[in-house]
């Protein structure tokens, strides 16, 4: 385990990213990439700073982040419960598995009108879409996690004469934890994608909507500022979850 400072690969990675951004900046400044198409990263950053400072989109940002938080929490909890249930029913699972595998090809957004009627026109329809998109990742990770519990640990539990509930809590859960966390990470990523994409295509609020709106109205500065915001939020959240994930893996996986 490394503490403080970067590994050699970490430095190279940083250098690659910085070089990419600088090259991008240079290409824009030299006019190779026309300004009507894309702005130099530095201008995106100043635009984002300006947007945050004026608070023009604060309500949208809050609404998006809130929806993402609710959607991830819901899909993690529901996905975990469903994963356990499906794992307990091998026949159901065998039948369901090919469906789960092709699930992501179906654009969940199609069901927006259905959700609108079921949940009313509010964030809840967007949250429902995001949950629909992310829950499968959690279910799949729960199944993998439960599958990967070493048989010997179950045997050990039997040696200690544990009941089903105790075993689930003291053995199964911690043993499956690394996979479950991977599921949490994925569920968050998909919830984020789901919320932003729903806003982008369907709704009248949120960061996604504002990006689409800015695109339609040729407000490239706003559009790229908001894009940068999404990229930063997604990358930072992913990096944090990934670090925790790696820690867990290195400690718990054998």
């Amino acid at each position, binding site marked *: 385990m490394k503490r403080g400072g970067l590994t050699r690969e970490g430095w190279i990675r940083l250098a690659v990213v910085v070089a990419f951004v600088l090259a991008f900046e240079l290409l824009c400044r030299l006019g190779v990439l026309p300004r009507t198409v894309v702005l130099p990263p530095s201008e995106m950053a100043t635009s984002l700073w300006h947007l945050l400072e004026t608070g023009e989109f604060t309500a949208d940002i809050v609404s998006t982040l809130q929806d993402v938080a609710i959607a991830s929490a819901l899909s993690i909890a529901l996905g975990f419960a469903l994963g356990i249930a499906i794992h307990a029913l091998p026949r159901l699972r065998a039948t369901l598995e090919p469906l789960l595998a092709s699930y992501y090809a179906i654009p969940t957004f199609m069901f927006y009108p259905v959700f609108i009627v079921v949940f009313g026109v509010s964030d809840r329809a967007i949250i429902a879409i995001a949950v629909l998109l992310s829950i499968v990742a959690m279910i799949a990770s729960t199944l993998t996690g439960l599958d990967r519990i070493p048989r010997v640990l179950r*045997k*050990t539990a039997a040696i200690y004469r*544990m009941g089903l509930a105790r075993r689930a809590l*003291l053995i199964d859960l*911690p043993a499956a934890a690394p996979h479950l966390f991977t599921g949490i990470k994925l569920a968050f990523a998909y919830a984020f994608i789901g919320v932003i994409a729903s806003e982008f295509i369907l709704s009248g609020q949120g960061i996604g909507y504002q990006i689409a709106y800015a695109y339609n109205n040729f407000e490239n500065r706003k559009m790229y500022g908001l894009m940068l915001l999404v990229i930063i939020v997604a990358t930072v959240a992913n990096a944090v979850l990934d670090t925790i994930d790696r820690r867990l893996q*290195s400690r*718990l*996986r*054998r």
Partner: protein
Amino acid sequence: MTAASDGAASGVEIAPRDVHAQLRGVTRVFPLASGAGLHALGPIDLDLYHGEFFAVVGPSGCGKSTLLDVLAGLSPPTDGTATFEDKPIDGVPDGVGVVFQEDASFPWLTVRDNVAFGLRRAGVDEAEIKKRVDYAIGFMGLRDFERAYPAQLSGGMRQRVCIARTLVLQPRLILLDEPFGALDQQTRLLMGDELLRLWRETGATVLLITHALDEAAMLSDRVGVMSARPGRFIDIVETHWPRDRDSRIVSDPGFGAVTARLWEKLRVESLKLMGTRP
């Protein structure tokens, strides 16, 4: 000589001893998808005496682990009876500890918490837990790694953790399923020494399953040789080693004779196994 099932055991004389665990006519048949059954084990008769070190060797797939599962109460015999301390084995009996071949340490607990796990489950009070855990950790040479997680340890160290975890519960019968299978030869020898020390100090009955003849010969009072599947005992070899022994016994003139006899019996069975393979 009561353990030999087909009269192949040699006429070693044994004073009548106190039976600790007993198998009578035990067989194990696994149901197959086709509807037929896979006859994995038996029939087996076995008397394990109080305080003895008994090893089981046999060709791979002969049902050694199944035998252990029956004794541990992890799987009931299809036929026959199994008793421990005169009570029929129904579920995991109290007083039995098991160490598996696979690493069974809990990766989410520190070494210390791993060792204390069983005691906490049993509701032993903390002062007693501390005492026993300290002892076991010291005994297994884990003092420097108390706070470490299994992922930070070598395979040998992790197996020590599992042994310590079994040890603290002060089992009267310790079942070991090829516990050193994944370790290198030097480590195995040294772990064997520790196992002997543990056996002497606790006075527990030990049943060790192994595929290594030298390990069986070096550690045990008696070695049971099993046939190819369905496994049964074709020979039981007494070693007559002193109770106070260690791995240096391998240089004893009698050691070669014991391993030679084990191999003689096992070779035939192993050849059968290879011959039956496609």
